[in-house]
């Protein structure tokens, strides 16, 4: 993945609002054996509904340019690009329920000189507390230089600035980097906008669904189909370096896992075994692949090097052991097993030792996914309805984030603060991708060209 060249990134002061948030009290079943939000290692979940930074009014002005010249970007000339860049930033923040963004439409457009010397009185009068300005320049080699500046209007002070050199095809990444800069600086959270999503695009009747592998930016732009739909594709996962995608295909009639190489447009099997394999997962460092394989009807979890070679069997119970998600440090794996009689969530070391159950709150618990921050495990909680829920890694602190008929398969945004899942509509079976934040707020549908399922969020791009 092309690296954006950061020109400079300056942190001038501590995050705007220091957050000392009270831990969320446990909800869920009465079992008091697993409780508490403080992990043995001292990890504390800090999520609150009361974020003061959420109400910040932010004015985002069209990015200025020193010369309005044509570019190879699909957004057009540098002047048009300037408006589009600001729009992407504004949409990023607005769509995720972050702050109170306004503009670029309806706001005065600064000149190139004013970008780094804003007219603060203008913005005070407009009751904007924060101001985002930027510029875009066309370089002689065809690339674009984009600068992004964040100002505190009341303090009349520049809070943060950054710049990037991007190819014209990647202009949206510069906007996402700007959104990330603004978001991180004001909330203290890690970035997530400059990332991509792999998912399954669905069309056709319920009993003959056509399922295609597809990718898109985190905001749904730059959408691309990767398979034709002739063979059913399921459950994709971006590699941490964005160079390949693991997914399941019925290409030869049987479910097998392939690594799809994006640059070479080719794919290979991860194992030569003729047994059915499914539920592929990457380790956070991209070195290992977890997968589930069924032998004589019994499914267990295996691990294989991403380079290929022999597989190591991790589970060996007569129950269905399936899925699996590494902790961010790669030392543990959370997975799903019905060895107790129903689907529940288990932990084990990355080598398969010390397997133990952590879900004890009634109903069934499936599809566990470890947050990139390590502090939460998202999963599907089945008690009649299928609900997206989170718990801490010891199985306590259960919180439900959604409440529809069938929401399943949560995966995490790179910053561990937003969860993506798919929702199935009753009867029609129509599937759509949704997001919700860790406080259960801002539940929104991610627009896709057709129906969609199995979303998987890749990490932040460098």
């Amino acid at each position, binding site marked *: 993945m092309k690296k954006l060249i950061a020109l400079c990134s300056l942190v001038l002061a501590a995050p705007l609002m220091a957050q000392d948030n009270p831990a969320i009290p446990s909800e869920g079943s009465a079992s008091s054996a697993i409780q508490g939000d403080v992990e043995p290692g001292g990890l504390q979940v800090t999520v609150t509904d009361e974020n003061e930074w959420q109400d910040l009014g932010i004015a985002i002005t069209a990015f200025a340019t020193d010369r309005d010249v044509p570019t190879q970007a699909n957004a057009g000339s540098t002047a048009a690009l300037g408006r589009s860049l600001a729009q992407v930033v504004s949409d990023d923040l607005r769509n995720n329920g972050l702050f109170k963004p306004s503009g670029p439409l309806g706001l005065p457009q600064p000149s190139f000189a004013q970008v780094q010397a804003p007219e603060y009185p203008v913005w005070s009068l407009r009751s904007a507390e924060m101001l985002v300005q930027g510029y875009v320049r066309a370089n002689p080699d065809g690339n674009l230089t984009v600068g992004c500046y964040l100002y505190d209007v009341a303090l009349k002070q520049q809070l943060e600035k950054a710049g990037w050199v991007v190819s014209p095809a990647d202009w949206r990444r510069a906007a996402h980097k700007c959104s990330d800069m603004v978001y991180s600086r004001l909330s203290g959270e890690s970035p997530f906008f400059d990332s991509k999503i792999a998912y399954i695009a669905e069309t056709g009747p*319920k009993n003959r669904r056509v399922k295609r592998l597809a990718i898109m930016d985190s905001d749904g732009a730059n959408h691309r189909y990767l398979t034709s739909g002739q063979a059913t594709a399921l459950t994709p996962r971006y590699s941490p370096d964005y160079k390949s995608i693991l997914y399941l295909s019925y290409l030869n009639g049987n479910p097998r896992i392939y690594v799809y190489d994006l640059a070479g447009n080719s794919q290979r099997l991860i194992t030569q075994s003729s047994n059915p394999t499914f539920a592929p997962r990457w380790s956070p460092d991209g070195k290992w692949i977890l997968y589930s394989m069924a032998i004589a009807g019994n499914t267990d979890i295996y691990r294989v090097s991403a380079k290929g070679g022999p597989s190591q069997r991790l589970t060996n119970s007569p129950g*269905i052991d399936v*899925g699996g998600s590494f902790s961010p440090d790669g030392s543990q794996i959370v997975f799903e097993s*019905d060895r107790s009689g129903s689907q529940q969530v288990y932990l084990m070391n990355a080598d398969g030792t010390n397997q133990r159950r952590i879900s004890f709150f009634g109903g069934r618990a499936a599809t566990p996914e470890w947050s990139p921050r390590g502090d939460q495990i998202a999963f599907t909680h089945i008690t009649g309805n299928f609900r997206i829920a989170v718990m801490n890694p010891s199985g306590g602190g259960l919180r439900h984030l959604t409440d529809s008929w069938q929401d399943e398969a949560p995966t995490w945004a790179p910053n561990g603060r937003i969860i993506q899942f798919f929702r199935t509509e009753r009867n029609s079976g129509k599937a759509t991708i949704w997001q919700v934040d860790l406080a259960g707020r801002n539940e929104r549908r991610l627009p896709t060209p057709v129906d969609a399922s199995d979303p998987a969020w890749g990490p932040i791009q460098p």
Partner: protein
Amino acid sequence: MSVRFSTGSRLMLLAAGSLALAACASKAPKELPPEPGVATTTDTAQGTLGPAPGSQADFQAFTQGGDTIYFDTDMYNIDSVDAAALQKQAQWLLKYPARRATVEGHCDERGTRDYNLALGERRANAAKNYLAGLGVDAARLTTVSYGKERPVALGSNEEAWAQNRRAVTITID
């Protein structure tokens, strides 16, 4: 019901006819075909024209719906109704030992995707193992799980779900 030929197929028939004539032009057949006369009915004493013996159509006709067995939620055991159906399947399979078959395992939509793939595998294998127990050579049988991807009943209710929790045996022609 009248049969209408499109222009295209009329041309095809003409072409086919002329080809046939061309092939036969060189010599007369040793025996002349019978004169076309009054149409005679097919002799039905041997039974109606049915599917070719040993074919998938024949398998389906023989098992009369018993090519599919059903399961309770999250279960993969063979109950007595399933056993009876599998007996019929085995009967046919033992009669045509050269035939291979695939057992498909399916689930209803009220389960998560990966678990359902695994559960479908359980169901397919349960049927396969039962058939093997009845004497069918296991080497003739393959399994494939479709999880919840291929429902036959489209509703979101108990009746539809019960129809989708199934294992289907399909012979390979």
